């Protein structure tokens, strides 16, 4: 009773004191927030979002508004959970010109678009460390292609794409000498270091990626980018810092100039020059890795040539827009008219006008040149400036109703402003240090709007503490009204950078539920238990194995010897949704497998000492899941143990014969 009295009093006190002044972390949420994020058991989320995994190299799929993580898609990192990068089929996906690289730093994502709207076909992802661009097929949520980017380092302004997915770009964050000519004094930066922008063409039907051309630009650090859309379709905009071209203590030396640049690239013009033969062919080496769904195998090839257009020589493909100061985000509004630069160190947000840009170019309204590239007059291309928006503007997204939302890293807030008038309309705190923002469809021609997610770098007191490293964080805001409303905090995987999202049905409508066994063209497929066998080829032992609820065939193998390379080619015979089988064997030095229904997957296993090695299914599949197991007997090297295999061969319950393995 006393307790209730206290609660009552406290509640009255709360009403009188803090009502209508929501400040601080607890009171930042209004009363109906819980209702707005509650997705009842058995109901699905309204929006599917794809969140970059930062330094863990993966992508997480998160439902909104609940904030529930639905899947981790491994892209640039090996993933023991399903054998990605460990199985023989997927190892080639992580090959590069530097060899096998099992991790990367994944920053930005782009959903494929048709007419400037999300079409639900593909998701593109960048690797910031060893420059790569990946494609994830959204029928299967699997990484099906990875392309390495030559002449680049730090593939940061990537993988932004044009409104019909004609191109995905990859702009280098680090200016570097061209590949193969990097052994030069760092002091020779201005002379030898260049900034390369790669335009990756995307096949209309198959989505296949190829580097159609690169543009050789001055040695800036290219940071972020966005394509024009609507009236500005045909142009691409890249923010760049370090116009000083310094190469040491950049936080001081690259912050000297009042303005750096946004580089406007006329890619349609670049295409014309490419067709007219103005590109020079350059000898390079880069990997192109593809996963073939019919054979379920990836392959890696090394490509040797790239076409390069020079921005210096071809005067009308690149123009520089002065932008205060050390610009980071470079965002184009849904109409394609406004280009918003976000100077990390600027006290204002400049909004540039595409129409004015076109006029200025026509009139050659230039204030000079940088390394042969025309610099436009700031005032001639400026639509307006948002004054005192907050500290440390980074990224802007749009709701399609004329409003822009900019993240403020230093002052930890999201600021909503009107694009036409450049007036601030609303601001809301984030907890804490917000990086990217994501409005659902907020970088398309037709934003879905409704939700905004802030991806924060720091969480401090937001969650239960977990040692020195705390959970990474996202915060969901309702932006359907005049004022932004915080609805939910939720932790994320890795350090989230950017995200993409759309209405769920865009992605659910085309999902593959299982692979058809009849269409499985894997070279080591086993279609039915009758075909299962064990084949020795020298010191290689190939096990053609099947799995079904709740047994493997074969489940007993003898005659494997120390020094053998054993390949378990496991075919999952199930033809039903949501019935993967796992495969693990004692002493495996790589990972397990998780084999989807109808799929064949291969684990290489090299036993190092004689003994009895159990193997089993790791994915709980039925009431008798625990019984889904078997043994491999390993004999010493050089022993004469015959190669035999069987399923259910016990003498007291004889069902099937013990079979002799084949030797080739």
């Amino acid at each position, binding site marked *: *009773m006393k307790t*209730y*009295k206290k*609660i*009552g009093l406290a*509640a*009255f006190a*709360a*009403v009188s004191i*803090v*009502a*209508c002044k*929501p400040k601080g972390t607890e009171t930042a949420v*209004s*009363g*109906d927030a819980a209702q707005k994020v509650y*997705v009842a058991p*058995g*109901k*699905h*989320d*309204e929006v599917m979002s794809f969140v970059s995994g930062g330094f863990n190299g993966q992508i997480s799929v998160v439902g909104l508004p609940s904030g529930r993580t639905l899947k981790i898609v491994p892209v640039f990192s090996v993933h023991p959970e399903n054998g990605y990068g460990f199985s023989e089929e997927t190892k080639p996906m992580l090959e590069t010109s530097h060899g096998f690289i099992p991790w990367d730093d994944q920053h930005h994502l782009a959903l494929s678009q048709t007419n400037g709207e999300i079409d639900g076909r593909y998701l593109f992802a960048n690797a910031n460390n060893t420059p790569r661009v990946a494609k994830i097929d959204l029928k299967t949520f699997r990484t099906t292609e990875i392309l390495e980017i030559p002449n680049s380092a730090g593939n940061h302004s990537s993988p932004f794409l044009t409104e019909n997915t004609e191109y995905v770009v990859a702009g280098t964050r680090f200016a570097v000498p061209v590949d193969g000519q990097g052994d030069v004094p760092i002091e020779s930066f201005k002379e030898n270091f260049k900034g390369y922008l790669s335009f990756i063409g995307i096949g209309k039907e198959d989505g296949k990626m190829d580097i159609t051309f690169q543009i050789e630009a001055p040695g800036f650090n290219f940071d972020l980018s966005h394509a024009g859309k609507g009236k500005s379709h045909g142009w691409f905009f890249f923010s760049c810092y370090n116009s000083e071209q310094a190469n040491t203590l950049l936080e001081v030396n690259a912050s000297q100039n009042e303005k750096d640049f946004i580089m406007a690239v006329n890619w349609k013009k670049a295409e014309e020059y490419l067709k007219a033969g103005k590109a020079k062919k350059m000898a390079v080496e880069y990997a192109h890795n593809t996963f073939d769904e019919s054979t379920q195998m990836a392959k890696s090839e090394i490509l040797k040539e790239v076409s390069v257009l020079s921005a210096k020589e071809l005067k009308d493909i690149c123009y520089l827009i002065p932008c205060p100061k050390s610009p980071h985000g470079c965002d184009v509004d849904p109409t394609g008219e406004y280009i918003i630069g976000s100077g990390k160190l600027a006290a204002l947000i400049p909004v540039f006008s595409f129409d004015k840009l076109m006029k200025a170019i026509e009139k050659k309204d230039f204030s000079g040149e940088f390394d042969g590239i025309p610099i436009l007059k700031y005032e001639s291309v400026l639509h307006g400036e948002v004054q005192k928006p907050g500290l440390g503007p980074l990224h802007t997204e749009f*709701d*399609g109703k004329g409003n822009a939302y900019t993240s403020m890293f230093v002052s930890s807030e999201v600021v909503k402003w009107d694009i036409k008038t450049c007036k601030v309309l609303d601001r809301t705190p984030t907890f804490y240090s917000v990086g990217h923002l994501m409005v659902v*469809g907020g970088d398309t021609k037709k*934003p*879905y*709007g*409704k939700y905004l997610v802030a991806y924060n770098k720091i969480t401090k007191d937001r969650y239960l503490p977990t040692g020195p490293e705390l959970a990474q964080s996202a915060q969901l805001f309702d932006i*359907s*009204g*005049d*004022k932004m*409303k915080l609805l939910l905090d939720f932790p994320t995987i890795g350090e989230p950078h950017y995200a993409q999202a759309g*209405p*769920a*049905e865009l992605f*659910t409508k085309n999902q593959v539920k*299982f692979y*058809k*066994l*009849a269409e499985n063209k894997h070279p080591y497929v086993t*279609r*039915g*238990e*009758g075909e299962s066998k064990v084949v020795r080829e020298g010191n290689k032992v190939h096990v053609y194995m*099947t799995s*079904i*609820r*709740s*047994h493997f*065939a074969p489940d007993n193998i003898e005659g494997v010897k120390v020094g053998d390379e054993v390949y378990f080619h496991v075919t999952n*015979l*199930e*033809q*039903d949704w949501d*019935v993967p089988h796992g495969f693990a064997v004692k002493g495996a030095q790589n990972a397990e497998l998780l084999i989807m229904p109808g799929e064949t997957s291969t684990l290489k296993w090299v036993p190092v000492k004689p003994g009895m090695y159990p193997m089993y299914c790791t994915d709980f599949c*039925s009431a*008798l899941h625990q019984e889904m197991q078997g043994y491999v007997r390993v004999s010493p090297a050089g022993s004469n143990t015959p190669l035999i295999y069987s399923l259910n061969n016990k003498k007291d319950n004889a*069902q099937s014969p013990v079979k002799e393995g084949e030797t080739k």
Partner: protein
Amino acid sequence: MKSLRTIAFAALAFTLFSCGGDKKTDSIPSGSAETTAATNNESTAEMEATAAKYDPNRGLGKHENVDVSKFDPAMAAAGKKVAEVKCTSCHKTTDEKLVGPGWKGVTTRQTPAWIMNFISNPDPMIDVDPELQKQLELCLVRMPNQGLSDTEAREVLEYMREIDGAK
């Protein structure tokens, strides 16, 4: 005590909502309207209703009048091939139980429509069919849906008929 509780909660509610003032907007700027696709979960009442009108001779599904007046050996041979990929991991063609029951005699115990409905979409029938419930208690593994097409289901039926001596 009860009244205090009410007051406390009312006061709390007041705190929570007093700052509202915002109109409740359900409108979505663009795209389609309603959230959430419901799952396949039927309510208990619905399940009971299904069970009540369940026909144990026909099973659940689209197959109704299956013409088995003639035996088609080619179809049975095709059915054997399908079975070897999708069925015989768990079923023997004798009356011996493996993971699931042996096939011998199944065409004398069940109607052609029941067999085709069950093998093409087993889950809903396992939930309601008394015979299948008994089998489940014995085998403890729900028969997987192996994604049989209509043609494949018919072929497998013909193969089962062949096992049972159809000529």
